[in-house]
């Protein structure tokens, strides 16, 4: 199972004054069960890219292969593709519309042509997986908090049982606790059901904390593609394209510049803490040995 993009190009409003080349020769291979972060400044092509993955936008040129099959083939079932590759848009709670939460989550599976019973079973499972207490299920979705609404909207996509889940800036506008809840949810789904998860985010700290691979988009092209340590090691290049590394990555480099013998690879808080404590524990031991020798 994989998604392969082969020299994908996309041009908005081709042939008009507003023509803009949003994707340029994008080649990517997304393997089964990966947890990938997609970063890039506003207008770098992230959203355009992910809308290609479930066939909402059709490439101007190039090919996309889902599990080995060309999705642009005439007899390819693109409706099914959209249920296999679940896309959660920015501010998905704006798309809630039913009178109860439960009905809203049922909408997707019903639209797939599933029976009422099957749709309801899926809605049950999806709502349970986002951890929303059952007492809320038959209330209006509009009375929930921002973070809860967003989780309900995500449940609506989960109820379609996607193999790939794409979250476009899922934490925008949420308070820190709400952010953690959504990201932990995504991480849990990735771990428990081996779902492939793509996380589009502006928060380098979040990306560093959760994903195993980062794709950096710039001016419609893939600029970097690698593990967080690798990508954030090139923080100067990231800054040139309007991005940044997590705060702790800068800290490590600054400590090194000030003469501390520290490993500069840390990108998360835990890694940074471990690296700093290591430097000081080594020193602490030396000091203790020193004093012992003096005492002797």
């Amino acid at each position: 199972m994989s998604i392969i993009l082969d020299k994908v190009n996309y041009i908005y409003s081709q042939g008009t004054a507003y023509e803009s080349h949003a994707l340029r020769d994008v080649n990517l291979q997304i393997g089964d069960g990966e947890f990938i972060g997609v970063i890039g400044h506003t207008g770098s092509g992230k959203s355009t890219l992910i809308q290609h993955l479930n066939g909402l936008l059709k490439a101007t040129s190039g090919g996309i292969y889902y599990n080995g099959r060309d999705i642009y083939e005439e007899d390819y079932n693109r409706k099914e593709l959209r249920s296999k590759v679940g896309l959660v848009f920015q501010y998905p709670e704006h798309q809630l519309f039913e009178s109860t939460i439960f009905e809203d989550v049922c909408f997707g599976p019903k639209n797939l042509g599933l029976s009422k019973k099957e749709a309801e079973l899926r809605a049950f499972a999806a709502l349970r997986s986002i951890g929303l207490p059952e007492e809320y299920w038959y209330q209006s979705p509009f009375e929930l908090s921002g973070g809860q609404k967003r989780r309900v909207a995500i449940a609506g996509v989960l109820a379609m049982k996607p193999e790939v889940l794409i979250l476009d800036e899922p934490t925008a506008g949420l308070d820190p606790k709400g952010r953690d809840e959504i990201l932990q949810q995504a991480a849990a789904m990735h771990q428990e059901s081996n779902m492939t998860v793509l996380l589009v985010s502006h928060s380098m700290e979040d990306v560093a904390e959760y994903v195993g691979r980062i794709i950096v988009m710039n001016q419609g092209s893939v600029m970097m593609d690698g593990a967080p340590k690798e990508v954030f090691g090139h923080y100067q290049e990231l800054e040139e394209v309007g991005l940044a590394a997590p705060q702790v990555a800068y800290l490590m480099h600054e400590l090194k510049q000030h003469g501390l013998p520290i490993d500069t690879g840390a990108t998360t808080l835990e890694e940074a803490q471990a690296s700093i404590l290591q430097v000081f524990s080594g020193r602490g031991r030396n000091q203790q040995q020193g004093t012992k020798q003096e005492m002797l």
Partner: protein
Amino acid sequence: MNFIEARKLVHEYFRRDEEGNVEGILTALDGVDLQVKPGEFVAVLGHNGSGKSTLAKHLNVLLRASEGTLWIDGKDAMDEEYLWDIRRSAGMVFQNPDNQLIASVVEEDVAFGPENIGVPTDEIWKRVEKSLSSVGMLKYRAHSPNKLSGGQKQRVAIAGVMAMEPKCIVLDEPTAMLDPNGRREVLEAVETLNREKGVTVIFITHYMEEVIRADRVYVMDHGKVVMQGTPRQVFSQAEALKSYRLDVPQITLLAYELRKAGLDVPEGILTREELVESLCRLY
């Protein structure tokens, strides 16, 4: 005299059924006291639903309090007579730029505000140019807002308010959708306006890193102000902030964890520079 003087402000939202009978009451503001001096940069933190946005809407008289008093720039916000004066002196930037842009060309959108209050044409264009360049959007002046990304739209919306040259701007999560560079640019533009023009700023955000240079921070929970002080005072209480669904900046959290692990790092570290300095001193 304080620019904003709120005492025991209460706001209740009534939920009604189809016949108009009151089904429930939500108290969004529950006795809020807020004093902001002219030229201050005040940040407001709080989880989703804590009452931040409701408070912001009072400062522009989009909402009026159920109880309590609110004076803005020496004018009583409850008095209908001062409505437009207050709206002119306290400009507002909302979270979603799509709801704020109305013209078909960026520069016309920015010109809409000053044109509406009768600024002479020459002066309008000067203001448009200045405010667009302050948010890094001057080269898009002839574009259609529809063709901009979310972050670019938000910067145009901020330029629109800046073009009104208000005494105070209230920004309700203006950076929620911007990339790191965009966030930095917007924050810097707002800080410059505060520092150089003396504009009073009320900055509502969920990004803890954005408030470390504020003069004062207010923390809201369930419609009440539960903490207030300098960023250093507020962020030195990591556990309390977590109980309000908030956090502390990553660097502050790291310093806190290092301190817990036995390193003699001072409390309330806010910036990388401070942490680097104290670690180097320890080493």
